[in-house]
């Protein structure tokens, strides 16, 4: 390992950091013939950086040279930055050595576009192939699929990688054209369709031939940048919903836009990255994937954007007070799941636990229900308390919001500590 590798690692790790995808879950790749590594189906994080994000995969750019000039990207052609390119061996060595020391769960490889899509993709596939065949490495590999690369290369990539992804970045085609003149939706959606079809084909094949090689066992994902274009949450979530349904994506990632090219006047001037909005979008994403909400219930024409102060589930409950209070000891699983403060696990435990005896507040607390939010929306084996219907939604909202604040912010003078020797 030469000294210049250290510099390359600095440049190309730093270039890859804006990609948020870091999941190492969803693949079950056993260790073959006493080789190195296996992919744990639940995924493992190995460290956490000071921005609070997990480090599971070693995220690298193969190169940060790029022929495109996308306004939101730090590696765009017109930026005057240090550029560098890894050799195939350097990436392979780093992956193996880091993996052996239990630093990482696998490799995440992305790349700027050099020469043409096929040339770029071919080198990425070579790295994955080298790892899988020569090194007998069975850890996780996530490859960025380069739009415009040939079907043959996509096919090979899928055989070596656990996950493939193509980033959409901007949620509407017009805005994408404005910010990234070299890109269009058609080119991005094409590889997504190819990958989806191959996954379906592969599933059929494996039904017939048990040992047929697997094609991207952890599926495909994509990323949307939030706040670089004026798209509403309604638009973003509907796009995400479509991707989950029609392209069978495993994950859609939302990445709050970090102003890397503030000189570009096509981009909004942000004071700070929209982290709260990103957080709310993930919550909404979870609601329609795991809580049986429809997107229309979370965002619609009356409420095109998510409420930044409260989470989307609470926000939905406050807009629909007629549903509540829900009787914990009688209601169905789906209904209980709609109570703010009750998650999938607690809801399941409630269903199981109430067979034995009627549940009261202290039982619920032990199960793990967040009573601070839930208590206004439920009835249980306890004296009748004030619910959302008596208190009215706007009051419940302000009570919950104010409970989060420390006392001194609420009323600076009332909670002052008494002094024995007042000075005045």
């Amino acid at each position, binding site marked *: 390992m030469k000294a210049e590798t250290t510099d390359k690692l*600095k440049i190309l*790790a730093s270039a890859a950091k804006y990609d948020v995808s870091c999941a190492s879950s969803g693949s079950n790749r056993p260790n073959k013939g006493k080789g190195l590594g296996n992919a744990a189906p639940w995924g493992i994080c190995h460290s956490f950086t000071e921005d609070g994000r997990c480090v599971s995969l070693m995220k690298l750019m193969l190169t940060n040279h790029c022929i495109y000039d996308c306004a939101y990207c730090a590696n765009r052609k017109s930026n005057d930055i240090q550029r560098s390119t890894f050799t195939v061996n350097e990436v392979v060595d780093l992956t193996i050595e880091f993996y052996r*020391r239990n630093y990482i769960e696998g490799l995440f490889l992305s790349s700027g576009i050099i020469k043409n899509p096929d040339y770029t993709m071919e080198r990425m596939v070579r790295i994955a192939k080298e790892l899988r065949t020569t090194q007998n490495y069975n850890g996780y590999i996530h490859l960025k699929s380069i739009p415009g690369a040939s079907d043959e290369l996509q096919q090979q990539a899928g055989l070596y990688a656990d996950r493939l992804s193509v980033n959409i970045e901007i949620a509407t085609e017009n805005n994408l054209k404005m910010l990234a003149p070299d890109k269009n939706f058609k080119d991005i959606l094409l590889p997504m369709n190819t990958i989806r079809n191959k996954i379906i084909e592969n599933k059929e094949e494996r039904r017939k031939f048990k040992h047929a090689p697997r094609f991207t066992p952890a599926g495909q994902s994509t990323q949307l940048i939030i706040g670089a274009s004026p798209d509403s949450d309604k638009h973003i979530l509907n796009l995400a919903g479509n991707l989950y349904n029609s392209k069978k994506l495993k994950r859609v990632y939302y990445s709050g836009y970090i102003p890397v090219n503030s000189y570009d006047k096509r981009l909004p001037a942000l004071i700070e990255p929209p982290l709260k909005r990103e957080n709310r979008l993930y919550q909404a994403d979870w609601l329609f994937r795991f809580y049986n909400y429809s997107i229309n219930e979370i965002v619609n024409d009356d409420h095109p954007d998510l409420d930044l102060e409260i989470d989307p589930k609470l926000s939905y409950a406050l807009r629909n007070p007629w549903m509540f209070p829900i009787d914990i000891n009688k209601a169905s699983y789906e209904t209980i799941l709609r109570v703010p403060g009750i998650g999938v696990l607690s809801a399941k435990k409630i269903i199981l636990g109430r067979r*034995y005896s009627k549940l009261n507040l202290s039982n619920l607390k032990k*199960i793990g229900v967040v009573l601070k939010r839930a208590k206004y929306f439920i009835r249980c084996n306890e004296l009748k308390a004030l619910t959302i219907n008596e208190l009215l939604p706007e009051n419940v909202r302000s009570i919950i919001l104010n409970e989060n604040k420390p006392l001194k912010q609420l009323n600076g003078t009332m909670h002052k500590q008494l002094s024995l020797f007042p000075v005045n």
Partner: protein
Amino acid sequence: MNLFIYDQTFEGLLTVIHDSMEMNVEPEKIMSTKSFQDDLFAIKYDIATDPDKFDKIWNQVKEKSNEENCQRIFKAFLSELPDIELTIYNYIKLIIETPYNVEVNFSEDCVVKLNNAQKKVGRESQRVMMFVRFQKTVDDIYYSSFDPKYNVIPLTVSHFKNRFADQKWVVFDTRRKFGYYYDLENVREITIGQQKVSLESGKVDNDILHMSEKLFQKLWKSYYENINIIERKNLKVHMQFLPKRFWKFLPEKDFKSELILN
């Protein structure tokens, strides 16, 4: 007060449960010989571990419950929490005495307690899998030590064995002074003469470190620093996911646990 004393093994604890049920004496305290404190007014029962009695109870639990639940009980035992013995006693007694399935009856106190304990153990064993860092030595052994809150290293052995099948490795518990060594064939339990390894930080002495080791630690640290997005700095979440007690094992944190954060 009825005080039962056992030898700190799982078999011993189940023997206690067997004997107390047979004698029809309700234990109010169950202590291991290690944590034993004499109590002037207690009626003491010193129970000798008996594999047959263990089998009898364990088979009853297996019959009434399922394999997954037995795992749960064992995990809870590994937590070594104060009074976990009594919780396990109550739980097993409940399972044996109730005609129907009780493991999800969350209105029972011992069910909730046992589940919380096993959850803590599960989480800690995941942390071992996350934060163990191997250091390569001159004789090609990948060494690591860890200081887990609960006795969870045994739960992680099969994970490391499956994953690092082609390298020799050691995972050592510095708190309980034992570890496991994989020699490319089998895993066995070991204790180490501690001259070459610092017990505090688990760091291997420089003279037996592999020549490439320092370089990869440096590369990893530089990777870690460069993947961070400064504009998104969020120390609260950072500390929540990566508590300081793990820092002394992490090269990316310079093996330091006392770092001043602003």
